[in-house]
Protein backbone atom coordinates (compact mmCIF):
# COMPACT_ATOMS: atom_id res chain seq x y z
CA UNK A 1 0.00 0.00 0.00
CA UNK A 2 2.74 2.44 0.88
CA UNK A 3 4.69 1.46 -2.20
CA UNK A 4 1.66 2.46 -4.26
CA UNK A 5 1.69 5.98 -2.80
CA UNK A 6 5.44 6.18 -3.25
CA UNK A 7 5.09 5.19 -6.89
CA UNK A 8 2.36 7.74 -7.47
CA UNK A 9 4.09 10.61 -5.69
CA UNK A 10 6.42 11.90 -8.35
CA UNK A 11 4.13 14.64 -9.63
CA UNK A 12 5.69 18.10 -9.37
CA UNK A 13 3.90 20.66 -7.26
CA UNK A 14 3.56 23.01 -10.21
CA UNK A 15 1.38 20.53 -12.08
CA UNK A 16 -1.10 20.42 -9.22
CA UNK A 17 -1.14 24.23 -9.10
CA UNK A 18 -1.66 24.30 -12.86
CA UNK A 19 -4.58 21.87 -12.63
CA UNK A 20 -6.23 23.95 -9.92
CA UNK A 21 -5.66 27.17 -11.84
CA UNK A 22 -7.24 25.69 -14.97
CA UNK A 23 -10.30 24.45 -13.11
CA UNK A 24 -10.64 27.74 -11.25
CA UNK A 25 -10.54 29.61 -14.57
CA UNK A 26 -13.15 27.28 -16.02
CA UNK A 27 -15.36 28.18 -13.06
CA UNK A 28 -14.81 31.89 -13.68
CA UNK A 29 -15.68 31.47 -17.36
CA UNK A 30 -18.81 29.55 -16.41
CA UNK A 31 -19.96 32.37 -14.13
CA UNK A 32 -19.37 34.89 -16.89
CA UNK A 33 -20.99 33.18 -19.87
CA UNK A 34 -24.03 31.37 -18.48
CA UNK A 35 -27.40 32.93 -17.73
CA UNK A 36 -28.96 30.08 -15.82
CA UNK A 37 -28.55 30.88 -12.12
CA UNK A 38 -28.17 27.22 -11.15
CA UNK A 39 -25.34 26.69 -13.63
CA UNK A 40 -23.69 29.82 -12.22
CA UNK A 41 -23.90 28.22 -8.79
CA UNK A 42 -22.33 25.04 -10.16
CA UNK A 43 -19.45 27.09 -11.53
CA UNK A 44 -18.93 28.58 -8.08
CA UNK A 45 -18.78 25.02 -6.75
CA UNK A 46 -16.09 24.22 -9.32
CA UNK A 47 -14.01 27.14 -8.06
CA UNK A 48 -14.44 26.05 -4.44
CA UNK A 49 -13.32 22.55 -5.32
CA UNK A 50 -10.25 23.75 -7.17
CA UNK A 51 -9.22 25.64 -4.04
CA UNK A 52 -9.96 22.59 -1.89
CA UNK A 53 -7.71 20.41 -4.03
CA UNK A 54 -4.89 22.94 -3.86
CA UNK A 55 -5.19 23.24 -0.07
CA UNK A 56 -4.96 19.46 0.22
CA UNK A 57 -1.92 19.35 -2.05
CA UNK A 58 -0.15 22.01 -0.01
CA UNK A 59 -1.09 20.16 3.16
CA UNK A 60 0.54 16.99 1.85
CA UNK A 61 3.49 18.93 0.46
CA UNK A 62 4.21 20.67 3.77
CA UNK A 63 3.23 17.66 5.91
CA UNK A 64 0.77 19.82 7.85
CA UNK A 65 -2.73 18.49 8.69
CA UNK A 66 -4.15 22.00 9.20
CA UNK A 67 -4.74 22.40 5.47
CA UNK A 68 -7.03 19.41 5.35
CA UNK A 69 -8.99 20.70 8.35
CA UNK A 70 -9.47 23.94 6.43
CA UNK A 71 -10.85 21.96 3.50
CA UNK A 72 -13.34 20.40 5.89
CA UNK A 73 -14.49 23.86 7.01
CA UNK A 74 -14.78 25.02 3.41
CA UNK A 75 -17.00 22.03 2.67
CA UNK A 76 -19.29 22.92 5.61
CA UNK A 77 -19.40 26.51 4.37
CA UNK A 78 -20.21 25.39 0.82
CA UNK A 79 -23.08 23.26 2.08
CA UNK A 80 -24.57 26.24 3.94
CA UNK A 81 -24.04 28.51 0.94
CA UNK A 82 -25.71 26.12 -1.46
CA UNK A 83 -28.71 25.62 0.81
CA UNK A 84 -29.27 29.37 1.12
CA UNK A 85 -28.55 30.04 -2.56
CA UNK A 86 -30.93 27.41 -3.83
CA UNK A 87 -33.62 28.66 -1.46
CA UNK A 88 -33.16 32.16 -2.89
CA UNK A 89 -33.35 30.77 -6.43
CA UNK A 90 -36.58 28.91 -5.61
CA UNK A 91 -38.05 32.11 -4.16
CA UNK A 92 -37.03 34.15 -7.20
CA UNK A 93 -38.42 31.54 -9.56
CA UNK A 94 -41.71 31.66 -7.71
CA UNK A 95 -41.90 35.44 -8.00
CA UNK A 96 -40.63 35.99 -11.55
CA UNK A 97 -41.04 32.57 -13.22
CA UNK A 98 -37.46 32.72 -14.39
CA UNK A 99 -33.95 32.06 -13.10
CA UNK A 100 -32.26 34.08 -15.79
CA UNK A 101 -29.61 36.18 -14.06
CA UNK A 102 -30.00 38.94 -16.65
CA UNK A 103 -33.58 39.53 -15.52
CA UNK A 104 -32.61 39.79 -11.88
CA UNK A 105 -31.40 43.37 -12.11
CA UNK A 106 -33.79 44.93 -9.62
CA UNK A 107 -31.13 45.39 -7.00
CA UNK A 108 -29.61 48.21 -9.00
CA UNK A 109 -32.45 50.53 -7.97
Amino acid at each position, binding site marked *: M*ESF*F*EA*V*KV*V*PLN*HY*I*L*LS*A*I*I*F*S*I*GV*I*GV*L*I*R*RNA*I*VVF*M*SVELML*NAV*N*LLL*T*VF*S*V*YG*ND*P*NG*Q*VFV*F*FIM*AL*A*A*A*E*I*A*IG*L*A*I*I*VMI*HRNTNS*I*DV*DILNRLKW
Partner: protein
Amino acid sequence: MSVFYFIAFLSILFSLLVIFAKNPVHSVLYLIITFFTFTIHYIILNAQFLAVVNFIVYMGAILVLFLFVLMMLNLNKDAEPTKSIYVKLAGIIGGGVLLVTLVGAIKLTAKSNPVVLQDVNLGSVQNLGRVLFNEFLLPFEVSSILLLSAMVGAVLLATKEGKPKATTV
Protein backbone atom coordinates in the same frame (compact mmCIF):
# COMPACT_ATOMS: atom_id res chain seq x y z
CA MET B 1 2.53 9.16 -12.15
CA SER B 2 0.50 8.75 -15.30
CA VAL B 3 -2.55 8.10 -13.11
CA PHE B 4 -2.47 11.71 -12.00
CA TYR B 5 -2.29 13.08 -15.53
CA PHE B 6 -5.11 10.88 -16.74
CA ILE B 7 -7.36 11.91 -13.84
CA ALA B 8 -6.38 15.57 -14.28
CA PHE B 9 -7.33 15.34 -17.95
CA LEU B 10 -10.70 13.87 -16.99
CA SER B 11 -11.24 16.65 -14.42
CA ILE B 12 -10.61 19.38 -16.96
CA LEU B 13 -12.67 17.68 -19.66
CA PHE B 14 -15.73 17.19 -17.49
CA SER B 15 -15.52 20.64 -15.92
CA LEU B 16 -15.48 22.10 -19.44
CA LEU B 17 -18.55 20.00 -20.24
CA VAL B 18 -20.25 21.38 -17.10
CA ILE B 19 -20.14 24.95 -18.34
CA PHE B 20 -20.76 24.21 -22.02
CA ALA B 21 -23.61 21.71 -21.75
CA LYS B 22 -26.89 23.18 -22.96
CA ASN B 23 -29.16 21.22 -20.66
CA PRO B 24 -28.77 22.09 -16.93
CA VAL B 25 -29.48 18.50 -15.90
CA HIS B 26 -26.56 17.33 -18.05
CA SER B 27 -24.46 20.00 -16.33
CA VAL B 28 -25.29 18.53 -12.94
CA LEU B 29 -24.45 15.01 -14.11
CA TYR B 30 -21.11 16.17 -15.51
CA LEU B 31 -20.44 18.00 -12.25
CA ILE B 32 -20.99 14.73 -10.38
CA ILE B 33 -18.32 13.07 -12.55
CA THR B 34 -15.99 16.03 -11.99
CA PHE B 35 -16.35 15.70 -8.24
CA PHE B 36 -15.72 11.99 -8.53
CA THR B 37 -12.40 12.72 -10.23
CA PHE B 38 -11.63 15.11 -7.36
CA THR B 39 -12.30 12.26 -4.96
CA ILE B 40 -9.77 10.17 -6.88
CA HIS B 41 -7.28 13.02 -6.54
CA TYR B 42 -7.78 12.97 -2.79
CA ILE B 43 -7.24 9.22 -2.73
CA ILE B 44 -4.02 9.61 -4.72
CA LEU B 45 -2.89 12.17 -2.14
CA ASN B 46 -3.84 9.69 0.60
CA ALA B 47 -6.30 12.16 2.14
CA GLN B 48 -8.75 9.45 3.13
CA PHE B 49 -11.01 11.60 5.29
CA LEU B 50 -11.41 14.26 2.62
CA ALA B 51 -12.06 11.63 -0.02
CA VAL B 52 -14.91 10.17 2.02
CA VAL B 53 -16.32 13.58 2.94
CA ASN B 54 -16.09 14.79 -0.65
CA PHE B 55 -17.85 11.67 -1.84
CA ILE B 56 -20.66 11.88 0.73
CA VAL B 57 -21.19 15.62 1.10
CA TYR B 58 -20.59 16.85 -2.44
CA MET B 59 -21.70 13.95 -4.61
CA GLY B 60 -24.30 12.69 -2.18
CA ALA B 61 -25.87 15.79 -0.71
CA ILE B 62 -25.10 18.96 -2.61
CA LEU B 63 -25.53 17.62 -6.12
CA VAL B 64 -28.69 15.77 -5.20
CA LEU B 65 -29.94 19.12 -3.89
CA PHE B 66 -29.08 20.68 -7.26
CA LEU B 67 -30.90 17.96 -9.17
CA PHE B 68 -33.85 18.23 -6.82
CA VAL B 69 -34.22 21.97 -7.33
CA LEU B 70 -33.76 21.67 -11.11
CA MET B 71 -36.46 19.06 -11.40
CA MET B 72 -38.77 20.79 -8.94
CA LEU B 73 -38.56 24.01 -10.94
CA ASN B 74 -39.09 21.96 -14.11
CA LEU B 75 -36.10 23.52 -15.81
CA ASN B 76 -34.86 20.38 -17.52
CA LYS B 77 -35.50 21.76 -20.95
CA ASP B 78 -33.26 23.65 -23.32
CA ALA B 79 -35.16 26.88 -22.89
CA GLU B 80 -32.31 28.90 -21.52
CA PRO B 81 -31.81 32.05 -23.56
CA THR B 82 -28.16 32.29 -24.43
CA LYS B 83 -26.09 35.38 -24.04
CA SER B 84 -24.91 37.17 -27.14
CA ILE B 85 -21.75 35.91 -28.77
CA TYR B 86 -19.85 39.04 -27.78
CA VAL B 87 -20.59 38.58 -24.08
CA LYS B 88 -19.54 34.94 -24.32
CA LEU B 89 -16.35 35.87 -26.11
CA ALA B 90 -15.59 38.54 -23.53
CA GLY B 91 -16.19 36.05 -20.70
CA ILE B 92 -13.92 33.44 -22.25
CA ILE B 93 -11.21 36.03 -22.89
CA GLY B 94 -11.50 37.30 -19.32
CA GLY B 95 -11.16 33.81 -17.86
CA GLY B 96 -8.30 33.07 -20.23
CA VAL B 97 -6.47 36.20 -19.13
CA LEU B 98 -6.87 35.13 -15.50
CA LEU B 99 -5.47 31.70 -16.38
CA VAL B 100 -2.52 33.23 -18.25
CA THR B 101 -1.76 35.47 -15.28
CA LEU B 102 -1.82 32.55 -12.86
CA VAL B 103 0.32 30.35 -15.10
CA GLY B 104 2.80 33.17 -15.65
CA ALA B 105 3.07 33.67 -11.92
CA ILE B 106 3.73 29.95 -11.47
CA LYS B 107 6.39 29.98 -14.17
CA LEU B 108 8.26 32.74 -12.36
CA THR B 109 8.65 30.66 -9.23
CA ALA B 110 11.56 28.34 -8.67
CA LYS B 111 11.64 24.79 -9.95
CA SER B 112 9.03 22.82 -8.08
CA ASN B 113 9.76 19.79 -5.97
CA PRO B 114 7.66 16.67 -6.35
CA VAL B 115 4.78 16.28 -3.93
CA VAL B 116 5.96 13.51 -1.64
CA LEU B 117 3.80 12.07 1.09
CA GLN B 118 6.02 12.13 4.16
CA ASP B 119 3.62 10.78 6.76
CA VAL B 120 1.23 8.06 5.63
CA ASN B 121 -1.18 8.88 8.47
CA LEU B 122 -1.40 12.56 7.54
CA GLY B 123 -4.91 12.45 6.11
CA SER B 124 -6.32 9.69 8.28
CA VAL B 125 -9.48 10.24 10.27
CA GLN B 126 -7.61 9.75 13.54
CA ASN B 127 -4.98 12.37 12.81
CA LEU B 128 -7.41 14.95 11.44
CA GLY B 129 -9.84 14.37 14.29
CA ARG B 130 -7.09 15.01 16.79
CA VAL B 131 -6.23 18.31 15.11
CA LEU B 132 -9.87 19.28 14.62
CA PHE B 133 -10.86 18.79 18.24
CA ASN B 134 -7.76 20.33 19.76
CA GLU B 135 -6.69 23.38 17.80
CA PHE B 136 -9.87 23.96 15.82
CA LEU B 137 -12.50 23.25 18.44
CA LEU B 138 -13.93 26.79 18.48
CA PRO B 139 -14.19 27.07 14.65
CA PHE B 140 -15.84 23.65 14.65
CA GLU B 141 -18.54 24.82 17.06
CA VAL B 142 -18.98 28.09 15.17
CA SER B 143 -19.45 26.18 11.91
CA SER B 144 -22.23 24.17 13.57
CA ILE B 145 -23.97 27.47 14.38
CA LEU B 146 -23.41 28.52 10.75
CA LEU B 147 -25.10 25.35 9.51
CA LEU B 148 -28.00 25.85 11.92
CA SER B 149 -28.53 29.43 10.77
CA ALA B 150 -28.28 28.31 7.15
CA MET B 151 -30.98 25.73 7.78
CA VAL B 152 -33.27 28.28 9.41
CA GLY B 153 -32.60 30.76 6.61
CA ALA B 154 -33.27 28.24 3.88
CA VAL B 155 -36.58 27.22 5.44
CA LEU B 156 -37.54 30.85 5.93
CA LEU B 157 -36.68 31.79 2.35
CA ALA B 158 -38.21 28.84 0.60
CA THR B 159 -41.55 28.74 2.39
CA LYS B 160 -44.34 30.23 0.38
CA GLU B 161 -45.38 33.72 1.36
CA GLY B 162 -49.15 33.54 1.39
CA LYS B 163 -51.44 35.85 3.19
CA PRO B 164 -49.89 36.98 6.46
CA LYS B 165 -50.61 34.46 9.13
CA ALA B 166 -51.86 35.46 12.52
CA THR B 167 -48.67 36.28 14.29
CA THR B 168 -48.42 35.40 17.90
CA VAL B 169 -46.68 38.61 18.87
